[in-house]
């Protein structure tokens, strides 16, 4: 029995540490109370008095509660025309933060933005990732500055303006604006105007994550510093060297393009090879993934180039051999046969590597087909040397005024101490930060900028593509848009709004109102650069000899926290990392074999929570103490650490979570190869991980097939489960105890295409925002009390299968033990599966509820009635999908959970159409029933039928890749009816015959056979 129990812990994480005595380690604090025996006996209150008080107070409380409270209703004095209380108003706007552009549709209620949707703009700006989704909560961050500040105390705009103008006028030294990439044309022209007023003014661009290698490579290859735009949809063969293009490489819009060419129904699918060091979201989706060390990336790239050159009978560049030469030759052949329909990308911070990548794409004729130099991406522009020369200038006393816009160098620079010291020599330091971050702490003036949802703006993210940003709420605080500040300091009385409008009408489009309505303007011309227009120089500079070392480290971006701008956003902190499923933390990832070698471990404690060893990481003279997380799939000898954590001044949710990886980001290189070492230190780290079982244990949870098999039989990999019965082998649905539910109005179904899901997690955040899902904090997540209504399960493949066990004669116990182990790094495959309430039509939860709080609707939904629930949790225990969430505490009224729901400002993001659940009730996905009811009502009011696609669940709207489809299957023409007929469709755990209303579509990989 004891042996069997072990199956359900992950073997990857040692179970020996499970300590039975540890089970009830938290005791009631009775002793602590009794310790005060002296005060107890000294009390003049006798036992009888105590009982009297008790009786009196309970009677008084009962009587008082009979009196209904007087509720005030305060209408507008002068109601704005467009607002109807109770109905949402939508505004088209745009998002640009952390070099990510997104085209948005902002949902506001009674003047408050509460949800961000992608405007599903056809070609560009699909980049509504998890951070963009969550940015609506950052608007209501109580950590934002309420007033401008001078020397850490609040000050008035009038005085600040007077003083700053004085400083600007009287300095003979340089005035510098340190900013992240500005893609606003009007702001750029405004800065030119500023330079006319103050001739010693200069703008220095500093992007937190640098793409200098790519920009410089294009400078070398094409003679101009730019980033091309990519079209992954047109690529039939994709080779990526460490570029996490589905999540954090250049533009999240790539995920949409990528999945568009991964639909097996079209009869073709792209093939994707990924060479990478860590396990990224992109690697997890690849058809073939090869773990390599960062130091050997260059060798692989050159080897591939050599192979391509060999195919074209060009002279070899004499590359060195690699471990995967056969694979590389095969890839080269595939690339060559897909000339002009392939794409090679790299995430390397080495310009030389990027030059070779350019050369390969040129050789394959991909330019102007799968990547465009005509339409350039303007999302990144910083030069690595600029910040260094700025520091030198500061030290040389050349800088008189330094302004910070969307930059936080004291947190994000690897040598922030050097910057801090240099900063002391600058007389006037001005920050435009929205909150008091690490850098603005050192500034003389903080002139808080408005949040982007409170601001006007124009954006030009790609050549010929323009977008507008408009305020969706009046500024909450006494903050001022940075452009207005600059105009004031120029002595200009024009408001930025007027400036922008004039500029836009003059330079971009006369049709201001239409562009404002649409949110964007596509002026991309069809004319393409012809290949002969290029001044392509095949510069193969002196090949830097790659140094190799025993341990190398790669820094990466998590899709939840990114560079840490939104670190104080509790939704993002609680969003599990797509791969590790860990929340509220960063950690040093290490491959299982490497961890074993070094004697490092992760293990589970008795309540299932994950613990890990602590290590001291040394890179050169930098030292960090961090926990280790054993990550299957990672290359042996490589460590990974995420950016965005370890902030000191982020706010109550974001400060002091994890360690600051930026301190290792030397020379803007994510790969640090030399002098890396780790050493185990004492101490145990407690993780809050939402998924502790790693493999499917031979079960058919995620069904998977290969494209070649799919072409032969579309039902391949999707074998119908049959029950052996007295009627013969039958489908589970044919053997049932229950009667069918009536379905004569609608029958809502949801289809989830596992082939389109990249696992990014935007849907999880959207669900939080739409359904008032509470944040519970690290401690509670650790106790498996996370409240996500929608989770994304991540499964690793295992080398052991039942068939293999039979062949090799492995015993059952040994087989299951092996099955728990994820496959070796070379063979590892990863699948993602979003799981929410399956809305079973024969629901196990409904039959066990003693108070009928969970019932079935005739529209195929499983209803959960909070006000009827008494909290027995029978339903939760009987749910085979584990999607029900119990509200353990009154998260919205318990100060211990100091997140957005317990904060007057944070409460403004709540959706007024959805109940904020109290303590002691069960909750779960409702299929956004508020939207269903709303759309039905709209149709009835307008006296028409419901249109397919009119009702969208929050997760569906958030999904850029269109993995989720919701609709009425009684409508024969609806998309979901078509999906249901798809041979790839299957029900999760069909053998239980729960007859879910949610169905999945088989994952298809395009592996080379």
């Amino acid at each position, binding site marked *: 029995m004891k042996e069997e129990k072990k199956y359900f812990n992950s073997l990857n994480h040692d179970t020996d540490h499970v300590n039975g005595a540890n089970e009830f380690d938290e005791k009631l604090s009775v002793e602590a109370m009794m310790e005060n025996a002296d005060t107890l006996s000294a009390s003049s209150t006798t036992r009888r008095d105590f009982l009297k008080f008790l009786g009196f107070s309970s009677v008084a409380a009962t009587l008082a509660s009979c009196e209904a409270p007087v509720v005030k209703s305060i209408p507008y004095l002068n109601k704005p025309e467009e607002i109807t*209380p109770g109905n949402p108003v939508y505004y088209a706007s745009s998002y640009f933060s952390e070099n990510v552009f997104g085209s948005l549709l902002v949902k506001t209620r009674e003047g408050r933005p509460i949800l961000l949707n992608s405007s599903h703009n056809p070609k560009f700006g699909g980049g509504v990732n998890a951070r963009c989704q969550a940015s609506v909560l950052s608007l209501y961050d109580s950590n934002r500055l309420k007033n401008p500040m001078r020397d850490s105390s609040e000050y008035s705009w009038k005085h600040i303006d007077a003083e700053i103008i004085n400083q600007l006028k009287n300095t003979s030294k340089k005035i510098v604006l340190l900013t992240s990439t500005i893609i606003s044309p009007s702001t750029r022209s405004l800065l030119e105007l500023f330079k006319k007023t103050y001739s010693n003014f200069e703008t220095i661009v500093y992007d937190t994550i640098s793409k200098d290698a790519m920009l410089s490579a294009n400078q070398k290859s094409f003679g101009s510093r730019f980033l091309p735009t990519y079209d992954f949809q047109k690529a039939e063969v994709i080779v990526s060297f460490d570029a996490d293009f589905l999540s954090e490489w250049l533009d999240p819009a790539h995920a949409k393009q990528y999945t568009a060419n991964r639909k097996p129904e079209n009869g073709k699918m792209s093939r994707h090879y990924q060479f990478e060091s860590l396990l990224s979201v992109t690697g997890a989706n690849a058809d073939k993934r090869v773990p390599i060390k960062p130091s050997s990336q260059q060798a692989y790239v050159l080897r591939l180039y050599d192979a391509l050159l060999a195919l074209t009978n060009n002279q070899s560049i004499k590359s060195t051999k690699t471990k995967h030469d056969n694979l590389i030759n095969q890839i080269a052949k595939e690339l060559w046969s897909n000339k002009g329909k392939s794409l090679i990308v790299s995430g390397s911070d080495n310009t030389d590597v990027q030059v070779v990548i350019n050369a390969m794409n040129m050789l394959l004729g991909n330019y102007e087909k799968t990547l465009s130099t005509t339409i350039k991406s303007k999302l990144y522009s910083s030069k690595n040397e600029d910040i260094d020369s700025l520091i030198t200038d500061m030290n040389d006393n050349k800088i008189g005024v330094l302004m910070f816009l969307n930059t936080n160098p004291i947190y994000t620079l690897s040598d922030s101490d050097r910057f801090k010291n240099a900063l002391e020599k600058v007389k006037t330091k001005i920050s435009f930060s929205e909150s008091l971050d690490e850098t603005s702490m050192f500034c003389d003036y903080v002139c808080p900028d408005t949040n982007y949802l409170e601001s006007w703006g124009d954006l030009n993210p790609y050549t010929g593509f323009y977008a507008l940003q408009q305020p969706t709420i009046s500024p909450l605080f006494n903050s001022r848009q940075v452009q207005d500040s600059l105009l004031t300091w120029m002595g200009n009385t024009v408001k930025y709004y007027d400036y922008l409008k004039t500029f836009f009408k003059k330079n971009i489009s006369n049709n201001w109102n239409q562009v404002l309505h649409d949110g964007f303007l596509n002026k991309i011309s069809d004319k393409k650069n012809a290949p002969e227009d290029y001044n392509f120089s095949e510069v193969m500079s002196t090949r830097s000899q790659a140094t190799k070392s025993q341990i190398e480290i790669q820094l990466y971006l998590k899709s939840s926290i990114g560079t840490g701008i939104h670190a104080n956003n509790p939704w993002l902190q609680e969003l599990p990392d797509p791969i590790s499923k860990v929340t509220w933390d960063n950690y040093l990832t290490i491959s299982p074999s490497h961890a074993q070698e070094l004697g490092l471990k992760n293990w589970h404690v008795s309540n299932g929570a994950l613990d890990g060893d602590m290590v001291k990481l040394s890179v050169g003279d930098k030292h960090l103490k961090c926990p280790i997380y054993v990550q299957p799939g990672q290359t042996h000898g490589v460590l990974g650490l995420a950016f965005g954590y370890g902030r000191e001044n982020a706010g109550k949710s974001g400060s002091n979570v994890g360690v600051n990886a930026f301190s290792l980001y030397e020379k803007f290189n994510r790969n640090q190869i030399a002098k890396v070492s780790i050493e185990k230190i004492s101490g145990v780290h407690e993780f809050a991980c939402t998924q502790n079982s790693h493999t499917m244990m031979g079960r058919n949870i995620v069904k998977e097939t290969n494209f070649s098999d799919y072409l032969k039989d579309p039902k391949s990999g999707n074998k119908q489960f049959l029950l052996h019965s007295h009627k013969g082998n039958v489908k589970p649905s044919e053997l049932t105890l229950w009667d069918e539910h009536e379905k004569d109005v609608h029958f809502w179904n949801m289809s989830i295409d596992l082939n389109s899901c990249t696992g990014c997690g935007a849907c999880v955040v959207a669900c939080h925002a739409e359904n008032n899902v509470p944040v519970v904090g690290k401690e509670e997540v650790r106790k498996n009390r996370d409240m996500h209504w929608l989770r994304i399960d991540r499964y690793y493949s295992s080398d052991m299968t039942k068939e293999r066990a039979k062949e090799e004669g492995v015993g059952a116990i040994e087989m299951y033990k092996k099955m728990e182990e994820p496959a070796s790094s070379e063979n590892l495959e990863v699948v993602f599966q979003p799981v929410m309430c399956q809305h079973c039509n024969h629901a196990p939860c409904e039959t066990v509820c003693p108070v009928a709080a969970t019932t079935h609707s005739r529209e195929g939904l499983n209803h959960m009635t909070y006000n009827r629930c008494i909290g027995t949790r029978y339903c939760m225990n009987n749910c085979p999908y584990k999607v029900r969430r119990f509200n353990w505490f009154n998260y919205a009224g318990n100060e211990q959970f100091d997140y957005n729901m317990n904060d007057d400002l944070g409460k403004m993001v709540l959706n007024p159409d959805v109940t904020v659940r109290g303590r002691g009730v069960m909750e779960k996905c409702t299929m956004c029933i508020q939207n269903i009811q709303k759309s039905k009502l709209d149709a009835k009011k307008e006296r028409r039928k419901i249109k397919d696609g009119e009702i969208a669940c929050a997760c569906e709207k958030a999904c850029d890749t269109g993995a989720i489809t919701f609709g009425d299957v009684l409508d024969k023409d609806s998309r979901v009816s078509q999906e249901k007929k798809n041979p790839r469709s299957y029900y999760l755990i069909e053998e239980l015959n729960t007859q879910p209303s949610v169905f999945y579509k088989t994952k298809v990989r395009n592996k080379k056979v």
Partner: protein
Amino acid sequence: MSTPLSSFRFIFLFFLSIAFSIFCSAQDAIVGESLFKTNCSSCHYLGPEEKKLIGPGLDSEIFEEHTEEWLYKWIRNSAELIESGDKVANELYEEYNKAVMTAFPHFSDEDISNILAYIKEGPSEVVVDSSESVGVNSSDESSTLLYIILIIIIFNISLLVYVKNTLKTAAGIQKESLLQSSLAWVQLNPSVIVFGAILIVFSGMKGCWNTLSTVGVAQNYQPEQPIAFSHKIHAGDNGIDCNYCHHTARSSKHAGIPSANVCMNCHTYINEGTITGKDEINKIYAAVGFDPNTRTYIPDYEEQPIEWVRIHNLPDLAYFDHSQHVNVAGVECQTCHGPIEEMEEVYQYSKLTMGWCINCHRETEIDTENPYYHDLHKNWIDKYHGEEVTVDMIGGMECAKCHY
């Protein structure tokens, strides 16, 4: 004290005298009243000149200031009169900031004379008050009568008891109190005790049940509001459509308390009410910063929101949508809110309990003519054999239709 007959006679005579006096004064004043209300009252009050609306207040004084002939000309076309260089007319024109009075060329002489007759007479008196006082008198009378009867009965009973006791004493029988005799009777009939006990227990339980089921039910809740707004005057007497002020009821889940700018649509000009005078209307002006004398909004005024007390408080866990009921189902406001047009002060008419909601859902038919239901309706004809399809039959009683 008069007899009932005499009081009837009194009321009759009273009404007759009023009617006669109105009839006598001039028949044309009644026609004039309706003409005045349609054409003049939006700019003129019926009262002293100082009571200005857009133009001056009008009363019998105008006949002292102007000749009838002048008045006829002025009313028919004041602009013409001004142009003709009439001194009085030009003075008036200057006084009212060169605002020209609307011309009424279609008025016949008779119309104008009717209006003038009405102005001369002033507002007609309200007769309701006096008849009410009569009613109060009569009810006083009847209760006095009841008291007299009661005293007579008590007197008779005590007389009989006294006679009985005297007779008993005379016969030498021991006297017994009422209590003793009834106890003796109960002893002889033990089943009464059982029955009584059951009765007490059950009525106690029923009492508890009744009390508990009123917990949280705020039927007849009638809080005092910051402004004594009368629905009777607005919706009842003046017949303003509910949707004029509560216009979002058709499009939103909230019927919406009208914002003060909706009040100001009318109250820019109506500065005085019939019952409370200026007191209550001035509260709106105080909220928005409006000066009724100059009829302008005070610049840079710090507006004071009006804090109404919410009467209908559904718990947060229940979702209710006005537009669903008002717009789609076509439910009258009064179905749930009661005779709102008769309420001086609004109270909660319905219980607003879940049972109350559900009962209505059980009884209310859906509008199968709505194209939303078209295809579905065919199925239902077979299924329900043509009987009425009520809300509950299509899932209107499922939990998450209202609780989510």
